[in-house]
């Protein structure tokens, strides 16, 4: 899209013509004076201490994937299968074999043959628990720490704490985000510029999107103007921002107006950056194959994973990919293998690709859902929600590979050893990013807020 464009660069115009109206707006924010040396709220900031991870790729599995059939090996559950469970249903053994993998000998089920090859990079957190038994609330707690009130999300806090390294891209990108989930990427009372930007998913919602079977890959509509060259659009945008600025000056505190101002500046810059970043055509066939792109079931998630690597390379701070349909109340035996198959090769490809580009050492890769599932069967071969014990895993930036942390009981029903609450996990992620979760605060309405509220302990054992 630069072809029609003569003599300017968008960046240059930004620096001269407009020099960030939005940033001016921010400088005027009364509640957050002197929060950063720069007037650009997205400028990279110094963390509290040297970070192990510089960015996050969060692979979010919506619906609550079964830990018992994937990453939490429970031989006793197999032995006791058929016995009465605690809540009415009978205990159901995992229909899949578990095997040890890598030098570390981590137990992983046969549903993840490719990811298992990276066993020595994985840190399995097998004692996760949260407070919410229903999907929307557990998802919200996973993202914001709090299911009750609207609070900033993990990604928004990360961006607030660290800024971002590419000011032409949102610092927090949500790929394939489900509908009605804005809160989980939201910035709440943090400035709107820190919220996640959804990419993809438009015109591709519900079942079709959850199955992740679109071959088109993520896209962002209206990414270019059919009429105006960049300098003309910049002139128009300057006018829009003048109107916005006058409104802000008249009305003083208007978070919505500040958000609009920022969203336009970012959108304008994204018009150049995003299509290029999302264009996979220059990736080699070898790379595409590594992610399972153009291979049917793995194509859609493969594209998203590759996109995530490109965003990570480009300096995006927090990238989240959602993969849906893990809510296996029934048909676990047929559906779970399909879900796992869709992501196994792409994730393995992502880990390998990050590693060979030297990015894995400072990129924190997270895999997990809002909760796990019960050892008891439901509806034949299904499992119910279980927020009392489940597994997520992390790899890369600053975590020990080839280890598992914590444990559930013999049947995998509840976390019993080294329990890790969402707050603890949040604290740990912040720590890996060089942020002290007790010191990363934001003053709102006369009170200091933080991601972990008054909770959270960093899990020291998993730090490399």
């Amino acid at each position, binding site marked *: 899209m630069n072809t029609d464009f003569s003599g300017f660069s968008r960046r240059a115009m930004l620096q001269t013509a407009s020099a960030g109206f939005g940033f001016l707006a921010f400088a005027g924010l009364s509640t957050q004076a002197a929060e950063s040396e720069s007037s650009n709220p997205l400028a990279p900031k110094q963390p509290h201490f040297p970070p192990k991870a510089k960015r996050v790729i969060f692979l979010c599995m919506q619906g609550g994937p079964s830990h018992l059939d994937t990453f939490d090996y429970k031989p006793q559950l197999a032995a006791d299968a058929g016995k009465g469970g605690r809540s009415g249903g009978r205990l159901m053994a995992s229909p899949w074999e578990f095997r040890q993998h890598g030098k570390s000998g981590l137990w992983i089920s046969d549903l993840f043959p490719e990811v298992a090859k990276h066993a020595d990079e994985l840190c399995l957190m097998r004692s996760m628990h949260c407070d919410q038994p229903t999907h929307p609330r557990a998802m919200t707690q996973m993202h914001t720490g709090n299911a009750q009130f609207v609070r900033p999300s993990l990604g928004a806090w990360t961006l607030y704490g660290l800024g971002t390294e590419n000011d032409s891209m949102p610092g927090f990108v949500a790929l394939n985000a489900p509908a009605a989930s804005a809160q989980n990427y939201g910035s709440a009372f943090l400035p709107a510029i820190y919220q996640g930007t959804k990419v993809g998913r438009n015109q591709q919602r519900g079942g079709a999107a959850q199955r992740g079977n679109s071959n088109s890959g993520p896209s962002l509509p209206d990414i270019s103007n059919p009429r105006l060259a960049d300098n003309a659009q910049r002139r128009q945008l300057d006018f829009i921002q003048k109107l916005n600025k006058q409104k802000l000056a008249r009305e003083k505190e208007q978070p919505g107006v500040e958000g609009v101002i920022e969203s336009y500046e*970012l959108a304008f810059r994204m018009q150049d950056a995003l299509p290029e970043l999302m264009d996979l055509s220059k990736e080699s066939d070898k790379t595409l194959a590594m992610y399972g792109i153009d291979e049917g079931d793995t194509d859609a998630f493969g594209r998203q994973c590759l996109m995530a690597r490109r965003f990570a390379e480009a300096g995006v701070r927090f990238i989240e990919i959602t993969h849906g349909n893990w809510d296996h109340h029934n048909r676990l035996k047929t559906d779970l293998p399909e879900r796992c198959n869709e992501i196994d090769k792409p994730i393995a490809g992502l880990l390998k690709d990050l590693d060979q580009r030297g990015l894995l050492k400072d990129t924190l890769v997270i895999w997990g859902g809002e909760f796990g599932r019960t050892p008891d069967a439901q509806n*034949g071969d299904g499992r119910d929600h279980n927020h009392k014990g489940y597994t997520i895993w992390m790899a890369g930036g600053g975590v020990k590979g080839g280890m598992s942390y914590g444990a559930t009981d013999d049947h995998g029903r509840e976390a019993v050893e080294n329990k890790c609450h969402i707050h603890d996990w949040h604290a740990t992620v912040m720590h890996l990013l060089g942020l002290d979760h007790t010191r990363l605060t934001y003053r709102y309405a006369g009170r200091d807020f933080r991601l972990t509220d008054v909770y959270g302990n960093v899990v020291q054992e998993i730090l490399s």
Partner: protein
Amino acid sequence: MNGKCENFGRWWCSAGILLSCVLVGSPATATADEEQQPKPTEEGLRFFEAKIRPVLVEHCYRCHSADGSGIRGGLAVDSRDALLAGGESGPAIVPGDLEQSLLWNAINHQDLNMPPKQKLPEAVIADFRTWIEMGAPDPRASTGVVLKSRVGPEDIEKGREFWAFRKPVRPSIPAETEWARTNIDRLVSAKYQEQNLAPNPDADAHTLLRRLSIDLVGLPPSPQAIDRFVKSWELNREDAIASEIDRLLDTPQFGERWGRHWLDVARYAESAGKEVDLSFPHAWRYRDYVIESFNQDKPYDEFVREQIAGDLLPAKDDAEWAEHLIATGFLALGPKALIEQNPRQFQADLIDEQVDVTTRVFMGVSVACARCHDHKFDPIPQTDYYAVAGIFQSTATLYGGARTQRNRQPSNLIILPTDDPDPNVKSLSREELAEMRRRRDELEREALEARRAARQPQKTDGDQRRNFANQFLLEQQATQLTNQINSVDDNGEPITACMGVQDAAQIRNARVLVRGEIDQPAQEVKRGFVQVLSSENVELSSKTSGRLELSRWMTSPDHPLTARVMVNRIWQHLIGDAIVRETENFGASGPGPTHAELLDYLAVRFVESGWSVKAMIREIASSRVYQLSSAYDVERFEKDPDNLYHARGNTRRLDAEVIRDGMLAASGQIDLKRPRGSMISGFGSGMIRETGPAMALPQTPPGGPDRGEVRRQGVQNLIAAARARQSGTSFLDTTVYYRSVYLPIARNSLPRALEVFDFAEPSMVIGERESSNTPGQALYMLNNVFVLEQSDALARRLLKEAETPTDRIRLAFQLVYNRPPTEDEVKVSQQFLRGAMAAVGDTRGSGVRDRNEQAFAGLSQFCQSLFASAEYRYAN
């Protein structure tokens, strides 16, 4: 109540019209009344023990019993209930019906092959025939389980003390103050004093008129309306406001605005959603019904009764009867997993959805939580869920569709007693109809053969694939024909049909399902209501479903929740925040009210006014609280950052519909006529894909070709739509100028203009929309074709209606911001227009423009800038 039913019955007969259902594709849900089979005879049981049980144990239990190696395909055969429930493919046994019994199919190696390796001996198969035909007597009651609830009568009694479960009573109104104008003001300002807050000043005339217009009709005020209002305001502020409220409430646009709020909670959509997004071509009748109901100010209690039990209510004539039937669409248009194979599972999920929406939408409590276990927070035992579920189990839900590989759960529709066919369906000649039927039958036969062929051992993989593909194509063609055939009557004339419900042929209580599992039924539960909400013992007739009684109970003036829940929503839509901030959760896990007395006051007033929504809106909008300025004040903000106490107005992001309609209104392009039907009804039954026909068939633009012509161009439209999608535009953006409430709502592919601005997710009950602020929205306002075209149209209007550049600027501000510009704004606008004139050659592509074109382009960009600015997107 019995008397009323009798009267109704007499009327129903005397009207001389019998309600009939149109059969589409296949019989309605095949749920035989297994639980009420006659007791098996001694002889039958002996036969089972001698001939059937040993075979099941020997050949089936290993893979199909709880004690075996698992329950393959979800099917267990070790109890009668499990056989009747069946597995993924459907019920294994339908007593007395060989064709419907999948076990029979499987042991004969028809579609399924069981046992897999070797067919049973013919004699054994004959025994199974005998056994199924004699009603499949089977003594293996799985459990005889009686589920004991942990919620006892004393918990329920105690639960009734919870604030939300007690009847609202009129609170005492605090003393008069100088500031307060209405009782609402007195109740709200009592909290100001407690919190030591002083209210903001009143909003100015322009701000208040814009607020009122947007809140009441979802459109900006016209320049004429602004003039009139400002003049009248100067004479008498109170009168000006009162008469403007009345005027707005009387316009037909009121129902379009408030009807849409209702459609948000009613999870209205025109397709099934979930995995396979099949269309609901008749759903729009419910949409129009809702809009009309709000316009007529139908008493809310009546509105509720119609939606739950319209089919059972007396009606004075056919038109009213039709209206009542359409109203029950509420229960039929939820999202559905039509690909589900097991009809019992499907029915259980359908009922669950109905229980869920009925209890949350009308009563603000979530009873569906109790499907699998006692409610975790409220004293609602699991048995209460099944008491309500029994009512819906005794109800037939009719949503249409034809059986295909993707739609395994089609149903009938309701034929309306009125002749009001869908304008988008064309009639067929008798010959055409006969030919279509012949062709359809032929295709179905071929498909059957292809299916059989595919089951046979294949020489190569390729053959197998071909056969599968063939079968699929044939079925798809047959379905298309079936859909067309079903859209007309026997004479080829389009039918007048709607989605909705009827009482089922069999009225029966539900059985509690242990952990909600369909193959684990426990005791039967008498149909009834939610105990904690009703202290009386209800006895429902065994002849009707009980929906009528349910709807009357919900709308009793003594009901603790129905009025509260609705006034809470009305308050939220006007004030910006609800009193109970989770509008569908009045239970113990919810946040509770910020102003309990105010809520009760409004609820009592609502019932007293005859459940008039317009009266409630008038009362709230007339309060001083509603009319407060939203201006920022640091002290008020720090004392009450979340504006819990309403000492200032809330600045609100406009809803997606208001943003789109407002652009159309300003540009003068808006078409305020209601389109007949919906784009989706024009598309008919079928699957909606992202490139799908529903999104592809353009509505006839004003003055454009007639509808039939457009339909004949279907294929070209498909291609055009696919091209448009590639270039990121949609025909919706360029050819459709009616109000947004009439845009097609397919669950899995929403119009971009709506989705980008946080439209209500149509598969969920949405009481409060999200309000995000994203770069995606910025890109939409900067680059979307709809926005560009409306900006052009506004520019043309300015040229036509104003003489000088400065007058055009002033008019533009009036049309878009609904206020005159400030001097600063005039100045920067003039600067921008001059700059645009000077910038010839900045446009994309080739071609040098002349000065006029350049001036127009600049003016259009100026208009677009106003639309794009923050002021347009927010209401103060």
